[in-house]
């Protein structure tokens, strides 16, 4: 094998091959030997003169000890021999492994076929990514599982919020819609059913401006949050049955209220008629502006009956509930639209009608509020014995 005009002085290691190299004249045989030893190869140099004097013929031999070499070289030979033995061992291990893989048929298992290899080769052009695509933003389209519309990916999440009715905004919108609808309904008819809008319950979570009539119906849920309790106590009870104009007046005028409505108000609020404004106090039963005496007087005056009312005791209506719950629920359901009271009904059911027994041992105040439904005008301050 001949390597003519090699620009570098590198040696290609080929045992027992004669290599002809073109070397610069300065390079001596010693230097050559030393550089050859760097590669752990014993070099035996034979200089022959060919056509030009700077050609050397090198005979590369396997590393074998030679007597004419000095002790250092022997040592080096030894060392490199050891190294080559180790390398050969590792190589042999690999050969065995490859041969085993051949015979097992697993040698070419992990390779891809040349066709796919060519297809998926890395692209290294300018202005294009490794796949060969131009780097533009791809718009992904998705299908809404609810309404089956094609949407852009960036608009998907907000759309889903509205479409499925979850998330803050969608409930606000729904509340507003409900309020508008309910106002319409009420203007057309007097009574409002308590059962036909179960999902209105959810809408009350965030809105304070929902129609008071509906709020009255949803008293169960509405009493859970302290905020709403406060609001309910001060505004809702007083204005419930008659005052739909949502006036922020703290008091109520009682003249145009029906008997049942008055009763309702008196159950839930203080009800004392103020001298100046001739209005009923809309605060709670425990309001400090008026005494119990006053409250008793007002009830006597308005309802024309003598009664013994102890406004401050906490009446345990839970027990009544337990006894009469089924009957009261049935009553409530059947008498959905009517405001007329049936005197045949037991007084105990009146208070518990419609209360859904969700709140266990809560105070009577809350219970009384809860027990009021539009379809239950029978509840009155007299009925908690």
């Amino acid at each position, binding site marked *: 094998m001949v390597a003519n005009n090699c620009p570098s002085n590198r040696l290609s290691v080929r*045992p027992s091959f004669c290599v002809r190299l073109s070397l610069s004249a300065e390079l001596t045989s010693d230097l050559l030997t030393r550089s050859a030893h760097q590669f752990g190869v014993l070099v035996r140099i034979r200089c022959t003169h060919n056509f030009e004097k700077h050609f050397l013929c090198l005979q590369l031999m396997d590393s074998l000890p030679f*007597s004419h070499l000095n002790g250092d070289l022997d040592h080096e030979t*030894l*060392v490199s021999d050891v*190294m080559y033995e180790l390398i050969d061992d590792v*190589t042999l291990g*690999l050969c*065995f492994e490859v041969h085993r893989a051949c015979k097992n048929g697993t040698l070419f298992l992990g390779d891809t076929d040349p066709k796919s290899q060519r297809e998926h080769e890395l692209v290294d052009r300018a202005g294009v990514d490794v796949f060969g695509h131009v780097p533009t933003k791809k718009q992904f389209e998705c299908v809404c599982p609810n309404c089956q519309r094609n949407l852009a990916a960036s608009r998907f999440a907000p759309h889903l919020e509205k479409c499925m009715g979850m998330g803050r905004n969608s409930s606000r919108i729904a509340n507003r819609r409900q309020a508008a609808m309910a106002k319409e309904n009420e203007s057309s008819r007097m009574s409002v059913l308590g059962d036909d809008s179960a999902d209105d319950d959810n809408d009350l979570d965030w809105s304070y401006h929902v129609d008071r009539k509906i709020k009255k119906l949803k008293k169960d849920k509405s009493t859970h949050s302290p905020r709403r309790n406060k609001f309910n106590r001060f505004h809702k009870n007083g204005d419930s049955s008659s005052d739909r104009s949502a006036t922020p007046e703290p008091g109520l005028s009682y003249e145009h209220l029906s008997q049942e409505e008055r009763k309702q108000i008196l159950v839930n609020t203080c009800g004392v008629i103020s001298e100046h404004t001739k209005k009923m106090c809309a605060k709670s039963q425990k309001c400090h502006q008026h005494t119990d005496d006053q409250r008793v007087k007002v009830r006597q005056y308005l309802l024309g009956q003598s009664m013994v009312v102890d406004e401050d005791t906490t009446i345990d209506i839970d027990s009544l509930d337990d006894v009469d719950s089924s009957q009261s629920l049935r009553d409530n359901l059947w008498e959905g639209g009517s405001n007329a009271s049936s005197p045949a009904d037991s007084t105990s059911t009146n208070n518990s009608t419609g209360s859904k027994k969700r709140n266990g041992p809560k105070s009577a105040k809350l219970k009384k509020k809860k027990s009021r439904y539009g379809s239950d005008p029978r509840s009155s301050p007299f009925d908690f014995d």
Partner: protein
Amino acid sequence: MADDIKRKDAQMRATINQKLVETGERDRLKDLLRTRLIECGWRDQLKQHCKEVVKQKGLEHITVDDLVAEITPKGRALVPDNVKKELLQRIRTFLAQQADN
């Protein structure tokens, strides 16, 4: 005389090999070499070469001897210099230690 030297040389080699095995240095060196060769990609290169040889010779008719004959010289050649240097250094150190003892 040459035979004498040769005999001595062979004897010396045998002693060295024995020492290497006894102390466990040979195994350590081999492990080190394996690690280095895998790190530098020598193994993958050589395996690729093996596959080419197998393709050339035919999968059915390949023998271990064939492979060994083809692969061993290539294997020696492909070892990078730094790995060789490191190994040589360690062997020399070991021999020096042995000489001292």
